[in-house]
């Protein structure tokens, strides 16, 4: 296993704060939907900031903690090379362009939202965005389909949040420890 805080064995020299910002700025601009495959391409293959093993290790941390993978990844990579300024550069680079773009979209939408064409266009867009979310949940559910215990937890969580509309915090604080204990107790 590689030590994440030590200098890496990658060929390229460690990126500067500016390079970290620009790298993630680029990712934020080109990434639609799934940014992760593009992040892998940029950091491992193109700019060689990280080796494959280092990327996998970092991704493990980012998936383990709350927050989007790529969001956490931008902070982790920046932190690793340049400390706190690098982390700030990473996350700011990642969200700078998307922030400006969504706000521009919102301004345009706000101006024309009463226009029937815009209403219908955004209505269709929302229906399609919902469809993408449905597909993601099916894809996430499939690997669990043969595990009765996991499916039970999925069902309880779904009912609590979608049907009963209970707040997330108490549901999470109860269900996560119970699920962890049950999975630890009944694992194969």
């Amino acid at each position: 296993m590689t030590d994440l805080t030590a200098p890496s064995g990658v060929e390229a020299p460690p990126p500067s704060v500016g390079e970290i910002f620009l790298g993630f700025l680029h990712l934020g601009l080109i990434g639609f939907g799934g940014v992760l495959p593009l992040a892998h391409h940029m950091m491992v293959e193109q700019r060689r900031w990280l080796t494959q093993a280092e990327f996998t290790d970092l991704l493990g941390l980012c998936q383990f903690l709350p927050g989007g993978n790529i969001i956490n990844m931008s902070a982790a990579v920046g932190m690793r090379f340049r400390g706190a300024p690098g982390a700030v550069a990473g996350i700011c680079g990642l969200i700078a362009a998307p922030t400006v773009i969504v706000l521009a979209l919102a301004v345009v939408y706000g101006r024309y939202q009463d226009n029937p064409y815009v209403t219908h266009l955004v209505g269709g867009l929302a229906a399609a965005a919902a469809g993408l979310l449905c597909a993601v949940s099916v894809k996430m559910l499939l690997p669990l389909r043969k595990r009765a215990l996991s499916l039970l937890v999925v069902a309880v969580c779904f009912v609590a949040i979608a049907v009963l509309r209970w707040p997330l915090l108490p549901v999470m604080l109860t269900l996560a420890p119970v699920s962890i204990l049950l999975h630890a107790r009944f694992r194969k």
Partner: protein
Amino acid sequence: MTATLLALAAIFAELSLLAFGGGNTILPEMQRQVVDVHQWMSAREFTALFALAQAAPGPNMMVVTLVGWRVAGLPGAIVCTLAKFGPCTVLTALLLRIWDRFKQARWRPLVQAGIAPVTVGLVAASAVLITEASNRASWSLYAITALVTLFSLRTRIHPLWLLAGGGLGGLAGVWFV
């Protein structure tokens, strides 16, 4: 105004630290807070913002910025963005140094195995709630959701094309519905 900004900051900082498994898991709670608890907008407006955010590049949680914008203008957008992306990234940066010890611990895969189904349940809840809220206007919109789901599952077509198709389908509704 300050009270609203503080409320937004509190909501999104909490969501930031509860987002195990990424942004899609916290959509139901975001919708509950913004629509039901604080009544800042309708469920349909919320899904319209979600759709706009999905149509823009970048990480998939830019809806946070738009909610802030809609509720409290530019200060709201800035507060929500910082509150949503700050806490989780600070946590990641802090834990980076001890992750080596942490990642080999025997309890780690057990914790992950236990959290995974909770994450899946939350994403499924998001899908159902967002579908229900965005298609409330017309039953025909369910056809778009169903087709996009099917295409996304069965083909490798880029999501952006599916969004574009959905937008055009919705536009066709101007003449047919």
